[in-house]
């Protein structure tokens, strides 16, 4: 038996940590606590400590130089909270997985379970805590990061296969990090589209202990293999055992959507929002689904929350303002929509997309209040922005088409609808909304023909390309699909099909740099248009395989 009675046992060299070499950032809104924390850190040898009072200051500091350790209070007063700060730092690549991020919370029962290890802090400290606890936790995280150094390096260089190999090494050789390595590997497998392997991995963790994140991972892996019934069973269990685990409700809503049950999807998200109303993306999704379900009150609350909770968030786009105004107008609340614009005027005017949202919404407000002269002015402004290359999301563009039609600009309206239709030839919801706009304008037949012409070309090129590919004539298939891409440059389905045939072609005929560049570009665009689409991960992996086979290394962040 090993007995050590000292506070600071002599550390073996592999566990030695040089605290004086660490750069630390303390993010805490209360000045008294901020200074006390700095003093604690100084007491155990961390002398390079910077302080930040809120998320904006923290981001500013992180842009100036890099830190090894961030100690961040969850509650930062107005503005972003600690979790939003962490997500934003990861999103903008301001911190790597090698940086230690410890969240300080006042509650012992705070929503601890974040969907992915990547977005979770390295540890939580419950306030108030003693300096000894902080040091002990920091030390074990630093040692863990040291063990994961190679895995993280490969991950940041997008060498996911190598990162998995690194995890396997830890799984076999470091029992202390077995579960951490399994968790990270599970996420890598999902990113690479290897859902069946992820399923096995999560079962393996569950066999040790049915911890909530492993069951959530299992459910996700099942859902991504279209085994939605099994996925839902697992989720119901998770919710019973860990009802505060909000990520389970997000996944349940995806499962319900896959089963085409939009009202159950809405119920799931509403439960998630009841547990945590803060997450912008959950509110965005709830707003969209409620809107599709015709539940305008819920949609309005959700879209208002997006703007309110996400006031400082990078995840809020001009489209979110458009979403709220659309619901307000559909409710007949013209004043509400006008107020939304007025309140957010300076934010919206800061970008062309924001200006487009303003012009379109103003146009619609004037149309609805019968003020056709003002409406025409706003519509002209929107047309001008579009002609200079500004675009909004598909729903905003349909709003714009509606406002154009109401102002008599049928030619512009038809052009806009045709563009939306080309880029979403397979989206029933958008095409139905477009038809409704024509119906309301009394131009049902004109609409039918605009939509038919717009989608026919894309559909034809796409179908021909796919048939050619199935016959093995990849060269001709590539030509067809690249033509389709040029016609519908924002159509994720077409982009993904093009990438697929290019990879097939290169696989068959050898390397073609130009083609691979096109594949990369189209895959990036597909990702922008349909983030998180189930096919993306698999295509990424195939592209990566081809690149590796032909010795191309993409430069990734270090």
């Amino acid at each position, binding site marked *: *038996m090993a*007995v050590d009675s000292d506070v600071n046992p002599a550390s073996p060299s592999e566990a030695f940590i040089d605290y004086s070499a660490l750069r630390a950032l303390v993010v805490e809104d209360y000045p008294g606590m901020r200074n006390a924390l700095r003093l604690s850190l100084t007491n155990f040898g961390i002398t390079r400590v910077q302080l930040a009072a809120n998320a904006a200051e923290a981001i500013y500091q992180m842009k100036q130089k890099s830190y090894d350790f961030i100690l961040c209070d969850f509650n930062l007063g107005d503005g972003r909270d600690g979790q939003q700060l962490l997500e934003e730092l990861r999103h903008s690549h301001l911190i790597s997985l090698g940086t230690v991020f410890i969240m300080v919370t006042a509650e012992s*029962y705070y929503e601890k379970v974040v969907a992915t290890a990547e977005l979770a802090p390295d540890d939580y400290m419950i*306030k*108030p805590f003693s300096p000894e*606890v902080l040091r*002990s936790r920091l030390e074990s995280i630093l040692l863990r990061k040291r063990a994961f150094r190679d895995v993280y390096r490969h991950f940041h260089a997008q060498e996911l296969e190598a990162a998995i190999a690194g995890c396997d090494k830890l799984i076999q050789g470091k029992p202390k990090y077995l579960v951490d390595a399994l968790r990270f590997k599970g996420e890598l497998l999902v990113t690479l589209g290897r859902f069946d392997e992820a399923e096995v991995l999560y079962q393996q963790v569950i066999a040790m*202990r049915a911890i909530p994140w492993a069951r959530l991972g299992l459910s996700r892996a099942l859902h991504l293999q279209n085994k939605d019934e099994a996925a839902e069973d697992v989720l119901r269990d998770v919710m019973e055992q860990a009802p505060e685990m909000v990520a389970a409700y997000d996944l349940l809503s995806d499962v319900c959507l896959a089963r085409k049950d939009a009202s159950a999807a809405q119920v799931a998200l509403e439960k998630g929002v009841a547990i945590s109303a803060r997450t912008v993306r959950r509110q965005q999704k709830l707003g969209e689904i409620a809107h599709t379900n015709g539940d305008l009150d819920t949609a309005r609350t959700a879209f208002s929350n997006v703007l309110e909770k996400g006031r400082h968030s990078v995840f809020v786009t001009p489209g979110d303002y458009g979403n709220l105004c659309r619901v307000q107008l559909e409710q007949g609340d013209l004043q509400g929509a006008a107020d939304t614009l007025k309140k957010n005027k300076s934010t919206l005017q800061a970008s062309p997309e924001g200006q487009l949202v303003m012009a379109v919404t103003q146009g619609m407000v004037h149309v609805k209040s019968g003020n056709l002269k003002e409406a025409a002015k706003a519509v002209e402004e929107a047309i001008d922005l579009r002609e200079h290359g500004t675009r909004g999301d598909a729903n905003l563009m349909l709003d714009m088409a509606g406002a154009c039609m109401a102002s008599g600009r049928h030619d512009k309206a038809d052009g806009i609808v045709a563009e939306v239709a080309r880029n979403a030839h397979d989206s029933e919801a958008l095409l139905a909304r477009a038809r409704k706009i024509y119906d309301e304008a009394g131009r049902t037949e004109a609409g039918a023909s605009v939509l038919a012409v717009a989608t026919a070309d894309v559909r034809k090129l796409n179908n021909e390309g796919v048939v050619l590919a199935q016959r093995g004539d990849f060269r001709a298939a590539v030509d067809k699909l690249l033509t389709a891409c040029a016609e519908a440059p924002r159509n994720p389905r077409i982009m993904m099909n093009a990438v697929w045939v290019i990879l097939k072609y290169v696989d068959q005929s050898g390397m073609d740099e130009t083609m691979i560049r096109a594949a990369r570009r189209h895959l990036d665009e597909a990702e922008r248009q349909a983030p998180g689409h189930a096919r993306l991960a698999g295509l990424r992996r195939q592209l990566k395989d081809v690149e590796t086979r032909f010795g191309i290394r993409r430069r990734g962040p270090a």
Partner: protein
Amino acid sequence: MKFDGTDLYAALIHELKNDLGLLSMTIDGIPRQGAAGHDGPVDAARMLCQNVVDRLQQALLIYKAIDQPIRPAIDAWSPHDAVHEIRDRAAALARGRIRVEAVLAPDVPEIWFFDRDLVEMALINAIHNSLAHARSALRIEASMTEGCLALTVRDDSAGYPEHILACADANAPCQSTGTGLGLQFSSAIAQSHDNRGRRGELRLHNDQGAVFCLLLP
């Protein structure tokens, strides 16, 4: 904002807990002078302060446990790290007045599944008790017992009084203040840990002092 009576108390405890945390950090910042007349009272103040902080933390958890059972957030943790962390906390509180040791049996695995925060809260409770009653030493141990991880706090005090041991054996609630409340709370934490039908336990006995043992399945 509207408060009903109990929520108001919870919010108040919360605020006091945070103020005390700050006070405790302030005391930490007072430099030692090597004079017993100065360092002694400062150490005593620090310990009392930490004790109150830990008790308030407990009170908040008990307040929440009134409406719903304690729901542990189980994950994989290193028993080695947990024992060393508790040892460091105990040593910092003891300030050399009482010797603090940590012992890990060789068969303790690298990871075990438990709610680290809850388990540490229970152990710190026992540490405060031992620091108040031990003559010269306390020891934190991890070992394997009946297939469970056993986390033990052992001291050289006069041991638990008979009535507490009797309550613990009968699994009945003891007095609802002081030591009794803390032990009841620790027992609830142990029992909230469940693995395939095997529940966790708190075991108390006397063996050349008080022995507090959490069994985690």
